[in-house]
């Protein structure tokens, strides 16, 4: 009796004739396991699922941002596993809190140090429009300094609101929409 090594279970061994022609079964197997797309879409998929924010907590909204990153409103499940301390290693700046006159150049500097592509979420009313404080000390909206992609309203916005804004940003990245010129 000829000894043959046993065929491992589960692996389809091709019985194709040695002529090399591709059968229908092969074509269907390939279609089921390969997808065609554009490079852009793959890159956008990768970018939107791994947006790393820079740690830029300024005031009260920062506490809700930290809560959004903790175990109840886990932001890591959306891909933001890490809030990087260095702007060079991050994609997203969540401006969480009020921007004072003294802090404005610092914010601009940090934003310039971030590498493209980068996005900005203005979290809270103070970052969006100056909020409750309409006075000499605060910049009335961070979009006077940096281009903003998503505004999340609230004082402070709930962590769920921030996550909603975050998913809006992910949709924006997926569509590849250019941000509106500010």
């Amino acid at each position, binding site marked *: 009796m000829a000894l043959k090594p046993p065929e491992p279970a589960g692996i389809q061994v091709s019985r194709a004739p040695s002529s090399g022609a591709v059968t229908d079964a092969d074509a269907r197997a390939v279609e089921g396991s390969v997808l065609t797309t554009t490079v852009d879409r793959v890159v956008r998929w990768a970018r939107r699922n791994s947006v790393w924010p820079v740690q830029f907590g300024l005031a009260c909204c920062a506490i809700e941002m930290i809560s959004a990153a903790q175990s109840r409103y886990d932001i890591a499940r959306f891909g933001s596993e890490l809030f990087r301390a260095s702007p060079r290693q991050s994609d997203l700046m969540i401006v969480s809190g009020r921007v004072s006159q003294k802090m404005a150049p610092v914010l601009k500097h940090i934003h310039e140090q971030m590498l493209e592509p980068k996005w900005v979420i203005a979290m809270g009313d103070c970052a969006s429009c100056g909020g409750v404080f309409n006075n000499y*000390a605060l910049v009335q909206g961070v979009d006077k300094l940096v281009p903003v992609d998503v505004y999340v309203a609230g004082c402070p916005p709930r962590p769920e609101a921030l996550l909603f804004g975050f998913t809006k940003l992910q949709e924006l990245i997926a569509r590849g929409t250019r941000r509106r010129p500010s």
Partner: protein
Amino acid sequence: MTGAAAEALARTLAGLAVAEERFRDEVTLVVPAERILEALGQAREAGFAVLTDLTAIDRLPVEPRFEVVYLLTNYTTPARVRIKVRVDADDPVLPSAIPVYPGANWLEREVFDMFGIRFDGHPDLRRILMPDDWEGHPLRKDFPLVEEPVHFVGHVPKVPSAIIPKTPRTPPTPPR
């Protein structure tokens, strides 16, 4: 608070003080500017070891314009007392309280930043809250709040602080 210690201090400083105000159980002593360090020193001797707060009030248009307020606390027999100095508007300057209370350092910088009142003898009198090149002293009454008016459809744009306007002391209500 009117504790025995505050009363005792009020008596001790009675010679120095030019006025005494009492409202809701609190003692405020007004001393002239040239005797303020003496008053603070005596308060410290009397057990008021902590300078809890140092601030100023702009009483425009009343003259003298500024009142610099020192809030002192005695931790052992809990008591509080306020010592006030009235300062004129043109070239407001006071001696620095740092020799008596070292904690006055930042507090005096803040008063300088917000009101423009200088403190002689302060080692490092510069702005603390506003940017270093800021012009003006924000908490003065003639420094505007710098509000942007809020636009509503169909209404005249208003600044938020004008929505409920300032009303002065209530006039007596007419009898019903």
